[in-house]
């Protein structure tokens, strides 16, 4: 594996504006009834007046050790050379095992293709053209950093090495490639 694409979501900079949500839908032609990405504004938590929201990006975590890939009976779900968890539509029968097995619940059946769909870091569109994923490009507050963590000069590597960050559900051993910079207020619930 030569590349290790990762995404960092800074919950301090994120304002939950859904620019990413809309850009993703537009870029990837995601049907109206489903979504690859949403940022949930959870809370407020804490005690008045010391409240805080949690900005929870919900999209494929691109697990290093992906449960969806493990359970797929046909190998339609696989991890690409660049580390992106991908789907081979031609091998998929639509058993929903991957959808059920995903601990993050970010896989869904695309009603048009009838196969599971999810975030793929825009790999066949923007990434292929050498651009950042749509969500990263449009983010008004630069809350998203994307890049190849194997590249010593990359911004993501710099950010991950120098800022406090966490991943979701690490206890499951999935090793997500989506990292989160926790809000400066309140605790981390991962």
């Amino acid at each position, binding site marked *: 594996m030569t590349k290790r694409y990762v995404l960092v979501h800074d919950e301090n900079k994120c304002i939950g504006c859904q620019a990413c949500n809309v850009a993703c839908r537009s870029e990837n032609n995601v049907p109206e009834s489903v979504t690859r990405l949403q940022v949930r504004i959870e809370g*407020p938590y804490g005690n008045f007046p010391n409240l805080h929201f949690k900005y929870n990006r919900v999209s494929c975590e691109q697990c290093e050790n992906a449960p969806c890939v493990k359970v797929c009976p046909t190998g339609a779900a696989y991890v690409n050379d660049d580390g992106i968890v991908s789907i081979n539509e031609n091998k998929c029968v639509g058993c929903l095992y991957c959808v059920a097995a995903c601990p993050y619940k970010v896989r869904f059946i695309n009603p048009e293709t009838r196969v599971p769909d999810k975030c793929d870091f825009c790999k066949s569109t923007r990434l292929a053209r050498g651009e950042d994923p749509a969500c990263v490009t449009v983010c008004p507050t630069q809350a998203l950093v994307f890049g190849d963590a194997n590249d010593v000069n990359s911004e993501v590597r710099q950010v991950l090495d120098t800022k406090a960050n966490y991943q979701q559900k690490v206890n499951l051993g999935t090793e997500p490639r989506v990292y989160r910079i926790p809000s400066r207020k309140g605790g981390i619930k991962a």
Partner: protein
Amino acid sequence: MKLDRRTFIKGAGAGTAGCMLATLPGSIAALGKTSISGSEQSIASICEMCSTRCPISARVVDGKNVSILGNKQAKSFGGAVCARGGAGHSQLYDKQRIVKPLKRVGERGEGNWQEIEWDEAYATIAENLNRIKAQHGAQSVAFSSKSGSLSGHLFHLAKAFGSPNTFTHASTCPAGYVVAAKAMFGGKIKRDLGNSKYIINFGHNLYEGINMSETRGMMNAQMEKGAKLVVFEPRFSIVADKADEWYAIKPGTDVAVALAICHVLINDDLYDREFVARYVEGFAEFAKEVKAYTPEWAESVSDVPAEDIRRISHEYAAAAPHAVVDFGHRASFTTEEFEMRRALYAANVLIGNIERKGGLYFGKKASKYNKFAGEKVAPTLAKPGVDNMPKIDAKRIDMVDEQFSLLWSSGGVYQSILDATLSAQPYQLHAWVMSRTNPMQTMTDRARIVETMKKLDFVVACDIYISEGAAYADIFLPESTYLERDEEIVDKSGKSPAYYVRQQVVDVIGDTKPSWQIWKELADSLALGEYFPWQNMDTLRLFQVDKDTRLLADIKQRGWLSYGKPLMLRETSMVKDFVAQYPNAIEPDADETYASRLSFKTPSGKIELSSKKVEGFAPGRGVIKYREVALKKADELFFIQGKVAVHTNAATQNVPMLANLMSDNAVWIDPVTAGLFNISSGDKIRIYNATGSEEGHALVTPGIRPDTVFAYMGCGSKNKELARATGKGVHCGNLLPHVTSPVTGMNLHTTGVKIAKL
């Protein structure tokens, strides 16, 4: 039992289509299949999903989709685009969008429409307007429009027609800070949030009401430069969440806290004496007035602890001059808007942050900038004008009261249309031509607007959808969306000159037209064609650039042109760089600034902290002063509203992608208050007052004061044509009373309501 996921997926596609609209005349759905065609190459343009108008770059992708991103040429916008902007193509190709002229059949507002051709539409409008003009005078026709190129062309038509009554939405949204700035500084002023080290914010929710460059600037200042943000807002908004300190201030009492800050600055000798002495008029009167406005007094009014006001004032002064009190945007918190916005400006003036980094500054348009540079750094634009426009003798309907004089040229008192129509004050209106405006949501007192529109002899609406206002039109004119339109070059100067331009990206859909063309063609029908001598937008643009085709090509190519280095007159480093760059630049002062060149277009040429002019047209208001206002009855809760990041206040609720994100505005209620009414989150509630009554759902949250309820604006449409929005959520305009604030002419968006569980 829950729907299982497959039933849901099957159902979702079919359920949202809405069967009734398949037959709505004039909609894309009624016209049948529409293919997407346009430029496959990125075209730089300007967004219009909200009124911020960010620079964008858009292209048609594989004939299937339109990709809309920010225009990277505009550095402070960073190539970003918000959810509304990104969803522009969803509005463009919405099957419910109207793409054919319509005429009303049946009662006004009943919702029965018939498709007609443009010729018939123009002829009908011309016949009616000319008849009304002949019978009652041209002034009896009011014209209102979304501002920008759209209002430019419609208001030109109004003037040609002979009516002085032109209105934008200003008095329902931003006019307060504009009027206050005119009174104090002689004109609009900008804020440099990106360089500020200490930002005090009174409910200016830049993280939901996104203004791309300001939103980015503030976040950058906060996260990368360590700026401190203090927010006073009754609701725990996103900006309150991102703040270092949040105070749940009592609604409408911001003016008290702002005045207390001024009190501390003066009383504790924290203000910039030198600046005040040099640039400020009326300081003594102001200082005398604010003597009484102690933090303790402010605490009793606003619930913000006195010690915090004192501490914040000291911190703010310590960060001066690179500190700012944000003067806000939507200015309809209280009827004392004029005093509130002036008090916020005063807190800036006292620390002398004018023309300093992180403070306030004036836009540096080309003519001014070139003068400082001693050379033509940036081209200036010519303003197309028409000679021999008819002289209009009639007074505007909002001119009866001299106190609104500062607003006459900045949009006018929009809601005065209601009184002029219903009670002939100051004279009777007979027709209303509206373009891309939805007063039903934002003008307040919806029932009165309905009454007004029913009483008028003739109503024309130009829009993309049949909005709630357009639902009462006799003739509906379908406008092309911004992605289908060319427009004039627009001045977007900040600290240095900049221009940008809106350009057509996709082919026009259906039988729609850009508004400049609609009003020009209507002028022909009205026999006013001589006042529209230009052929098309190209002619107008060429006139603007004085036939400099290379400049025009350049701006069309890049979409955004900025010139020179940022300049703030009192900032040494900037002036130094400026002078180094331009050898013929004006000689700086001894302190290496242009401080001596800073002047104000007020009667005194200074910042008028207290104003004789204002005292003249609004006695008692020359000096900024606190007045108690009753915004609600004792047994009511405050009702406040705000903007959400995925919608505008009145125009996007039917855009499919955005409606899918949010179509309901559950009402925020504090847990203790909710407990009194036995209300839980999700419960159906009634929210009502003397103005109206609405049904909605409750959102029980600690993020709101116990004496206040909150709802996002724009939901709960009542006309069936907006199928995705109708009947969903609480219609705020139906609960807000018809009130006009002194001097600013603003309407009022804070009122009292009662709630009940259903």
